[in-house]
């Protein structure tokens, strides 16, 4: 059996070291707050609502790769696939807060929810006002009737983009929260995996997929998806993924969307582009206009092979916010 093969140093320090590498790549535009995984833009922008995100590491460049003007203000990074502890989240919130309040924006997982909630209580003790938006864009993870049980995946990026743009416009915490919730409600994602990622500390793959099978709806930590099926053509797979997304919101003729084809880890850029070809022709056939296309490693699951597709439905509120400039390690507009 194949064993995971990675260029790392101490497996128990990968989360810390990748964050140091990210900070170095930002050339002073972000800085560590303490040494437990909190990181904040530097300098802070002119006073505005702080967007604080975070979650487990191992999904690079999510989350800390999206800090910067027009995007998130600070991030709390946990160990690989583990939500950050409340103290780290509080560090991030305290560094980012400018007296205008803090919006926590993160993926909807039991661990993140609990740790961010505890952090919100700690922040309250420090007289920092917080609001929370949990992202649940993964349509494969629960039926629409239980949308609040769905996981947050690559669609996080769209929601962060809108939140960051709204905050940069100087809107109030209440307004930013409302707009961010709206962006979340307009976002849908689903993924397909061909092979597993692995956590460096375990040195084991999180699951095994036979050579001739793929799994629809696989989660970002290797949580099982909705079905295992025989390998199929890219066009067939893309169609199945889009069918799921489209009917869920639903996205309908005349809609305008932003598209993200996200590498879960080790798919080739070639495969992502071949998928994009089909996504565009599919959406065109449904008379859905693609406003912008992002393709690449935006929210990964270590070396998992496969990709997710996310759509953000635009409207008059969201379009100018999406188009607003932003500058971060992993997203520039």
């Amino acid at each position, binding site marked *: 059996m194949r064993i995971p093969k990675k260029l790392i140093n101490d497996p128990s320090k990968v989360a810390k070291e990748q964050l140091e590498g990210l900070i170095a790549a930002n050339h002073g535009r972000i800085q560590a707050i303490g040494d437990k995984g909190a990181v904040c833009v530097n300098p802070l922008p002119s006073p505005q609502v702080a967007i604080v995100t975070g979650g*487990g590491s191992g999904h690079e460049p999510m989350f800390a790769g999206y800090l910067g003007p027009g995007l998130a203000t600070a991030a709390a990074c*946990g*160990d*690989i*696939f*583990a*939500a*950050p*502890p*409340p*103290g*780290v989240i509080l560090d991030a919130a305290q560094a980012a807060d400018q007296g205008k309040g803090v919006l926590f924006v993160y993926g909807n*997982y*039991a*661990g993140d929810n*609990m*740790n961010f*909630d*505890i952090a919100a209580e700690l922040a309250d003790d420090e007289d920092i006002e917080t609001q929370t938006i949990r992202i649940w864009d993964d349509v*494969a*993870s*629960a039926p629409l009737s239980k949308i609040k*049980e769905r*996981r947050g995946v690559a669609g996080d990026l769209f929601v962060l983009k809108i939140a960051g743009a709204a905050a940069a416009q100087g809107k109030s915490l209440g307004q930013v929260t409302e707009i961010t919730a709206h962006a979340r409600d307009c976002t849908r994602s689903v993924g397909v995996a061909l092979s597993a990622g692995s*956590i460096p*500390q*375990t040195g*084991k793959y*999180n*699951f095994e997929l036979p050579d001739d099978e793929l799994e629809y*709806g696989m*989660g970002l*930590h*290797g*949580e*099982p*998806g909705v079905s295992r099926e025989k390998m199929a053509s890219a066009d067939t797979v893309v169609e199945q993924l889009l069918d799921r997304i489209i009917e869920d919101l639903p996205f309908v003729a005349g809609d305008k969307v932003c598209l993200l084809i996200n590498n879960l880890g080790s798919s080739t850029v070639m495969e992502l582009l071949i998928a994009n070809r089909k996504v565009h022709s599919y959406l065109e056939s449904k008379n859905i206009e693609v406003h912008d296309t992002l393709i690449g490693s935006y929210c990964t699951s270590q070396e998992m092979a496969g990709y997710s597709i996310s759509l953000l439905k635009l409207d008059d509120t969201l379009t100018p916010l999406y188009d607003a400039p932003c500058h971060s390690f992993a997203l520039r507009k």
Partner: protein
Amino acid sequence: MINTAQTQALMLYVAKQVVASEPLLTEADLVIGDGDHGIGMERGFLAVIEMLEKEQLASVDKVFIKVGSTMMASMGGASGAIFGSFFRAGGKALKGTSDFDAKSLPVLIEAGLQSVMDRGGASPGDKTMIDAADMALQMSKTTSNESLESALSKVAEAAKQGVEATKSMIATTGKAKTLGERSLGHPDPGAITTAIIFKSMADFVKQGVAV
């Protein structure tokens, strides 16, 4: 009945046992979760070991509170919040206690469990550590007049049955949730940890390191 120093030694022993169980917990979380539960518990209890070896805590409640807050500060993940809350809340319920005995057990577990349920919104039957802790709680209530050794050995056994029970449950929370029926047959990792904690307590007391 054990005193504060012995309780601190007990928790140090527990911490070491959980750390030693990392591979087993990792395996369990690889099957129905994301594979990090063992590493998270190891990280948390290594911090607990460091804390317990450095500090000398003033009372039984402080031992548990400090164990909980150390876990909460260092672990992250679902289990950091869950086990951190469990020990913190359980410790608070023992406020001012300087002797840990069979009577303390249901107090500790009940308050800890309540806090876990408040924090995470899960209940018995959801295939979590709650199922092991709840079985332990029920047993601890019926053994509160026995010796600590006897009570702990029965409570540990009950927690183990709780683990068994999770095998026939379908996960409705946490990373195993989306497995649905495929989670059947596999025990919950957090429940296993809970059983290891009580088993280690029982072993510590039984081995007469302190009774």
